[in-house]
Each structure stands twice: as structure tokens, then as C-alpha cells.
């Protein structure tokens, strides 16, 4: 007969205790679970819908920023690409969100209340404001009519766009899922960088221009740097980002983003359609891989009781033996 599962490995695990370099004076965080079953109920969100939603939100938000910059500096081709890209991305992301609901016909219940304690409620209202602006910006750009209105919509979308790109980080972090919640300080910056890189990538593919090239390098650098910083600060919860499917996706993200940024950094890239398209495609794919990696890491961390129990046990021990921690 199997009894409750015991193990001491994670209590000693390098990451769990790296924070303060505490030594053996604190009793071991012994890991016990109920037959190895998860403590949490893992998310039921469908990976394609919700990871896709995170990615598309970043792409849309970043594109609206690029669109406004291109609009203001008279880069018609880049402005058009970014505006149409933003509208396309936000429409798809909305479709993914509705598709993921258990009761899609009740989607509008999202607008029944406005709750600051619910990132999904805030996000719904944000999309409710941003969507029409992105739409108006794209349609006026394509038709060439109502230019004044189009300029206003472009500016409005650029104001809300960055919020669309970063609120999705709050959306996933505001859960009990260890590998999401523990990253809440870095995740918004990570998503901001990743969104900017994806949007710049789109620009490089369809309308190579100097600002897109710069945004690509800057966004990719933020994406890569923030991933590292986040993993370093997350303690034990960083582990799922390095293992299994999530780990593979994160490595793909790193490789593609680094390659895309490297290509974009070459001064001649904007003059070569082939080179900039390759750089852009790598950045877009890298950004998508990041969201899928983060998504799967979260699910994996919720499925394993270790990631829930060990840090909490450690916290209790630290509280019980505060002297030992600093001793």
C-alpha cells in the first residue's frame, strides 16, 4: 500500500534556498504530499487559445506603438503594416478568448461588472476600448478616408496598446500557479519586450525600416534579459521553465529571438528584404514560443504538488526559526 509520498530533495534543491544562502541551521523543508496528487486544480485553459491570446495581445499592443511612431514620422508603409497587424492580432485574440470559454454565448457577461480585483475583467474593458480604436486606425489607413479621425484613433490605440501587451502578464500571475505567480515582478516587462519584438518582427517582414530594426533589437534584448532575471528570482518555481515541453519551448524562444535580434542588428538588414524577413519571422516565432513556454510551465508547476508545498513549508520554517535564517 502506498502511503503519503515523502521526499526531501526539493527542500534542499539549490534554487529553493539560493535566496539567502541559509544553511543547515534551519530544519529541512521536508516534502510531503497526498499520494503525489496536485494541491491545486491546474488551469483548464486550452494552450492554443490562451497562450495564443497572450502572444497576440503583445503583437497588437506593440504594433499600435509602432503604428503611431510610423504615422507621426510619415512612414506610410510601416504605419499600414502595423495598423493592419494590430487589428488582425486583436481580432484573433478576441476570437481565441471567446473560443476558450466554457459558455461562449455568455461572453458579454464579462462586461456585466468592472472589478479591479479581476485582471480578466479589467482586460475585457481594456479590449472593449482598444479594439475599436485599433479597428478605426486600420480602416482609415486602408481606405484613406477620415484621416483626422484615423490619426486620433492611432494615437488612442498607442496609449492603450502597451496596457494590452502587459496586462496579460497580470492575468496569468494573479493565480496560485507557482511558475506564474512567482514571476509577477518581471513578467510584465518580459511580455512588454516580447510584444515589442513581435511587432517589430512584423514590421521587418512587410515594411523594413530603421525604427522597426531598432525596436526589434531592443525588444529582443528585453525579452532575453527579462527571461533570465525572472528565472533567477523565482526560486524553485523557475524549474518548470527549464524542463519538459516548457523547457524546450523556452530554449526555442531563446534561439529564435537571439537569431532574429542578431540578424536585425546587422546594419544592412533593412536594405535586404530577405534578411529582414528572416529576422522578423524569427522574432515573431520566438515571441510566440515564449508565451507557449510560460503557459506550459505554469500548468506543469500546478500539476506537481512540490512547487506548491515546498516554498510554503520553507516560509513557515523561516517564520518559526527567524534567528537561524540570519545566523
Amino acid at each position: 500500500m502506498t502511503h503519503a509520498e515523502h521526499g526531501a530533495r526539493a527542500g534542499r534543491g539549490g534554487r529553493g534556498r539560493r535566496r539567502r544562502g541559509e544553511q543547515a541551521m534551519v530544519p529541512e523543508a521536508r516534502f510531503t504530499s497526498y499520494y503525489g496528487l496536485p494541491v491545486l486544480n491546474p488551469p483548464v485553459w486550452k494552450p492554443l487559445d490562451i497562450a495564443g491570446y497572450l502572444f497576440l495581445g503583445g503583437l497588437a499592443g506593440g504594433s499600435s506603438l509602432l503604428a503611431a511612431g510610423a504615422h507621426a514620422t510619415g512612414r506610410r508603409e510601416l504605419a499600414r503594416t502595423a495598423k493592419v497587424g494590430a487589428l488582425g492580432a486583436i481580432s484573433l485574440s478576441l476570437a481565441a478568448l471567446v473560443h476558450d470559454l466554457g459558455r461562449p454565448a455568455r461572453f458579454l457577461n464579462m462586461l456585466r461588472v468592472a472589478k479591479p480585483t479581476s485582471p480578466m475583467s479589467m482586460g475585457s474593458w481594456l479590449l472593449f476600448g482598444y479594439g475599436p480604436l485599433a479597428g478605426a486606425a486600420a480602416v482609415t489607413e486602408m481606405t484613406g478616408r477620415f484621416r483626422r479621425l484615423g490619426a486620433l484613433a492611432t494615437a488612442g490605440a498607442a496609449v492603450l496598446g502597451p496596457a494590452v501587451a502587459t496586462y496579460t502578464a497580470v492575468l496569468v500571475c494573479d493565480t496560485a500557479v507557482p511558475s506564474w505567480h512567482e514571476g509577477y515582478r518581471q513578467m510584465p516587462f518580459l511580455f512588454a519586450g516580447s510584444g515589442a519584438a513581435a511587432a517589430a518582427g512584423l514590421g521587418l517582414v512587410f515594411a523594413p525600416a530603421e525604427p522597426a530594426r531598432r525596436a526589434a533589437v531592443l525588444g529582443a534584448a528585453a525579452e532575453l534579459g527579462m527571461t533570465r532575471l525572472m528565472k533567477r528570482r523565482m526560486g524553485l518555481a523557475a524549474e518548470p521553465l527549464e524542463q519538459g515541453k516548457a523547457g524546450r519551448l523556452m530554449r526555442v524562444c531563446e534561439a529564435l529571438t537571439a537569431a532574429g535580434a542578431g540578424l536585425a542588428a546587422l546594419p544592412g538588414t533593412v536594405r535586404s528584404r530577405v534578411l529582414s524577413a528572416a529576422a522578423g519571422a524569427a522574432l515573431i516565432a520566438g515571441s510566440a514560443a515564449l508565451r507557449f513556454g510560460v503557459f506550459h510551465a505554469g500548468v506543469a508547476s500546478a500539476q506537481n504538488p512540490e512547487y506548491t508545498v515546498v516554498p510554503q513549508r520553507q516560509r513557515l520554517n523561516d517564520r518559526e526559526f527567524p534567528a537561524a535564517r540570519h545566523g
Partner: protein
Amino acid sequence: MSFAPHLVFGGRLAGDPDAMTETGERPRVGFFTDTSVCIGCKACEVACKEWNAIPEDGLLLTGMSYDNTQGLGADTWRHVAFIEQRKPVDVFQAAGQADAGSKLVDGAGPELRWLMASDVCKHCTHAACLDVCPTGSLFRTEFGTVVVQEDICNGCGYCIPACPYGVIDQRKGDGRAWKCTMCYDRLGAGMEPACAKACPTDSIQFGPLDELRERAEIRVRALHDAGQPEARLYGHDPGDGVGGVGAFFLLLDEPEVYGLPPDPVVTTRDLPSMWRHAAAAAVAMAAGVAACFLRTGRRPR
């Protein structure tokens, strides 16, 4: 569907159950589950399923002692856990084993100790599920409990990973989120919840939360005096990470042995900080992209 203005400002502000008690409307009610007298009969599981007309969700043999239910979910609102341990069973035996500690290993030494515990939704004071629900479907009742309004839930699934205890879940084929209502219908009619009614040993006690907390303190002291130092209360402390729960427990081992988190914290406690970080990131993103257009001049194309 009605618009509920009292929910507009979010669950925490509008639905603080302790504040409600202070206004003297109605006492907050709850469960005190004393696992030390649970006999593992599962009457609570059955009564809950019957009263709430919860669909059958598969029958399987898990090999986990007598537990074929496994955990709480959309179709299990009471779950009886079974843990088999080799530990001293009672005072006399504990005394007898005191100088024979080396024998405390599997297969030798003391008898089998069987822990049983009926788990349920904690009806948290600071309930993450309620906080994050974007539709206002989850709400705080006049009894201080947390309930899903199934006619409003759109199955967004946000409450599920938000709950630090793994209680609420999505019902397959239905799409909406379901969990214990503390028999909201029975409470309204002045009756106690079905599980408490059915429990033959009074392991599940229902009543005003203040009274239950006092009763629990007395019980845990009595167990300590009787030589069970491992008896402890779980979830009774209003100072814990979820502000104390409405359904608390007396346990005979660490919470994680029963599949409960040892130090749960409501995720929304960090939400103000999350919003601040997101706002800073949004500003940084806008500034960063704007900087990419500097000194590139106007270049009409």
C-alpha cells in the same frame, strides 16, 4: 440576469464577511471539520452528491487506501482523504514506544495509524476565486459564504487556478465552474448543510463561525492534554494568508499530508503590486518604441 451594483467594486471591498458580521446582519457561518473523530464512512460525500444533484463523474479504483474520489472538483464538493501511517496510535502506546524510537520504521514498531479527513471548499475570508471572477458570478452571500451563480458563469475558468486549495473546477460537458455552496438553499430555509446533517460522528460541525472557533480551541486543548500533541487547527486564524477560512479543520498531521497547502496566500494580495509593475512595464514599452524613432527623421515613403 441582473446587474449587481454591489459587486461593481470587487469582491474584497463589497463582500468582506467579517465586516458583514460587524454590521450585525447575520452571523457568518461555517464548518469545523474535526478529523480526529472521522471514521471515513463517506456519508458526507454521498449526502452532498444527493442533495446537490451532482452528476456521477466516473468510478475507479485508485489504490490510494479507501480513497477512490481523489480530490475536490466540479463534481466532488466533499472529499474524504485516507492516509495510512505507521505511528503511535494512542497515549499508552506512545508511552510504550518512547524509548524504542528506533523501531519507528515501516514494517516494524507501532501499529498502523489511519488518518481520515473530509475536505471541502474553505469559503475563504479573502477568496481568490471570488476576487478574480470577471462576471460577478462568484459572490459573497448573506451568510458569509462564497457561491457561484450558475446562471451567470461563462466558464472563463479564471477561478480554477486562482484557488490556492484546488477546490473549484470546470464541469466537463457543461463548461461552467462548480463548487460547494455550503448548501445555500438549505441555509436559506434554516437547515444545516447536508454533509453536516449526515455525519454520524459530528466530525463535520456547522454553525456560527465564532462559536465553532471557540469549540475548536477547547477540542484541540483536550487532545493535547490526552497526549496527542500533533493535533492542530488549520485555517482558523484570521491572520493567515487568506484571512482565515469559513471552513476550518482540526488535523493530526501536517496539512500537506492531507493534500492541503501548508501556508496558502490569496493571490490577489499581490495584485496591487502586479498592477504597478504592469503599468511601469507599459510606460517603459512605450518609451522604448518611441526612442526607436528618434533621430531617424521624417522619411515619407
